[in-house]
């Protein structure tokens, strides 16, 4: 259990990027009434940005 939790928390920034940042971005775009180019769905855009940002935070140790 300790190993599982340890792994989970080691990758938590990336998981946070997908689990929270991505839907926040997607729903912010929808709330603002924006349309993304090439018909990109907001959730896909959110996942790319959130996932990349989370991966960066995991690798570098900081979000900003």
């Amino acid at each position: 259990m300790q190993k599982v939790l340890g792994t989970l928390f080691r990758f938590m920034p990336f998981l946070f990027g997908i689990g929270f940042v991505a839907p926040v971005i997607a729903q912010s775009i929808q709330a603002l009434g924006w349309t993304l180019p090439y018909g990109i769905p907001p959730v896909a855009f959110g996942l790319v940005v959130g996932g990349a940002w989370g991966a960066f935070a995991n690798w570098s140790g900081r979000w900003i």
Partner: protein
Amino acid sequence: MDMSATATATAEGRDLSALSSQELMRLEKAIAERFMGGLPWGAVTWGLGNLAIWLSLWPLTLLGALPLWAAFPIATLNVMLCYLPSHEAQHRIIAREGEPLFWLNELVGHLSTIPMMLPYGVARLTHYEHHKHANHPELDPDIGTKSNGPWHMIFKSIAQRQPGSAAGKSYGATLARLGTDEAKRAGLVAVVYQLTYLGVLFGMAWSGHALVALLVWWLPRQIGVTYIQFYLSWAPHHPGAQMGRYKDTRSFRSKVGVIGSMGMEYHIIHHLYPRIPLMRTPAAYWALRPVLEARGCDVKGL
């Protein structure tokens, strides 16, 4: 202790330089005793009421009864206000172990910090270490807030919440150093808290309520925690260079006043007499100020 002497103890009009250190300590304690005792119902109401207001924001925003632009500042205020009632409980000011209302003390301690997701056990154990080792570069769990000035402090507060920050792990490191069964339990509870918090955020976000989770919890928590660290941890101990009973804390005048700084202008009284309730620390400060000056405390700010 002669109760009549305690009730009337005062430093007013006395030549404190003529007192020995022991006499000064007796006078100091006698004055402080005047401000102890009783149940601070204000802290109980504050802690539980604040939590009730924060909890009500969830159904109100989810049902569309309250717009998010209005809920966000309320939620931020809720987080800013949530720590101090628990702090009273941490010091057993509401009730001590063995007293009939100790359950109320623990209830306030556990519940009031839910908006900032700080488990009571972690808060209490690390806070006691902060009192024992205030300003110690290795043993004070809050030493990470030591900064050159207010903006530097805000920068450090945000920096410490980054995933790779060592300073951000100081509470966990303190629990590990303590190594007691109580500390281990507190650490486990902290893991449960963190998983619950993330579970709620992720669940709300992916069920279409990401902005509610962002503006009622995540962002208010970021702002509230920095505010709490600023006034409870940094300002009263700045510059944090000295240790010792009369040197580790100062009084100061805040630009946002006594209410805006949640009474932390008088935090020096809390470090000297942790069982004086928060709302009595201003009065205790003014009664004790001549003694604090005689002791060489930094009270020039107030």
